[in-house]
């Protein structure tokens, strides 16, 4: 079925507006995991990239994107590519703002391969203080680490730089 009611710009926006299943208020467009959106006849060809190799949200995202383009009248052709590897540097400014609003500190710039990064304490997403400490390098999802703020005493999660 070919539809002429949804143009490519609208389709692109529909795909990028799909919510991440694990991060509240953040879309997959914000996360920078949408590589491309194209129309080929009646098919919508969407190329996604996973954040982590084993991220369990990848399949949910693929299904949600397929639903979104199907609702728009297209046959879904969703592809996943690993290369080039996703980097947290691809998270948009809007995505960073939304993460902060959700109580998650956005990631610092990704480290160069092979370079051991000099680590500064991350800023508390609530009070902005840098008097924070790392509780665990691993958080509730693969992409986050657990911290606590010694200024406002709140625990919080921070996005790991990747």
């Amino acid at each position, binding site marked *: 079925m070919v539809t002429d009611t949804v143009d490519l710009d609208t389709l692109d926006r529909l795909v990028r507006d799909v919510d991440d299943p694990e991060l509240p208020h953040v879309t997959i467009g914000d996360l920078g995991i949408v590589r491309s959106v194209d129309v080929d006849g009646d098919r919508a060809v969407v190329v996604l990239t*996973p954040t*982590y*190799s*084993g*991220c*369990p949200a990848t399949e949910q995202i693929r299904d949600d994107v397929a639903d979104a383009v199907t609702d728009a009248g297209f046959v879904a052709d969703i592809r996943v*590519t*690993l*290369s*080039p*590897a*996703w980097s947290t540097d691809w998270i948009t400014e809007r995505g960073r703002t939304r993460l902060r609003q959700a109580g998650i500190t956005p990631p610092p710039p990704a*480290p160069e*391969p*092979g370079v051991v990064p000099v680590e500064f304490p991350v800023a508390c997403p609530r009070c902005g203080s840098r008097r924070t400490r790392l*509780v*665990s*390098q*691993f*958080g*509730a999802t*693969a992409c986050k680490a*657990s911290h606590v703020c010694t200024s406002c005493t709140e625990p919080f999660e921070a996005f*790991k730089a*990747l």
Partner: protein
Amino acid sequence: MAPLVTYTLRQGDRALVLAQRLLEVVTHAPEIEEDMALSNLALDLIGQARALYTYAGEVEGPTADGSVRDEDHYAYWRDQHEFVNPLLVELPNGDFAQVIGRQFLHDAYALPYWQAMTSSTDATLSAVAGKAVKETAYHLRHSHSWVVRLGDGTEESHTRMQDAIDELWRYTGELFESDEIEHELIAAGVAADPAGVREQWHSTVEATLAEATLDLPDDGPMQSGGRAGRHGESFSYLLGEMQVVARAHPGATW
């Protein structure tokens, strides 16, 4: 079996078997944050294994009945002698120092190995390596910090960490072996030569053990054979647990 299939399965098995061992520890780690850490490490490794198994199936091509083998086939339907992981990753967990020691010795190898594999002439393997290298760098930071914490900790933790490294040492030699299955792939730039990362592995291990006030073991006779399908007894129990549900309920879906 084509050399590229065996090579890819060796990499996938290394990741999956280590992940399965880590998952046995979850809920038994010394603190809840470590339960999360170990399961996160395992998740990354399973992700790497899935990509590698899927690729092995593509390279192997349709089997006699016309179907292409998928990740579940390789994980659940191969028997012990068909798994080709190095012995290090299948070793039983023992105490927490052994879990961390095994992880550290593996990560210190996997990081430079995946780095070398990012320039593989095989586009899929280099893409998998590009993801894995970032994840492994993070894993190494974690296992490194535990080795230092335990080694330079109490008398008890120091002794246990030293015992673990000494016990595991004889399984490290196999990581750097290559055989005739891999020689052509190495010559063609498809596979990285594991011997080429030995120096980097050794300097990482040496520096970390020094920081942890631990002694570097002497190289003695090394155990080998996992990559050729010869495994220790405990491996059959690992496979039994990993495969029982898939084999009891073939084709079941969530």
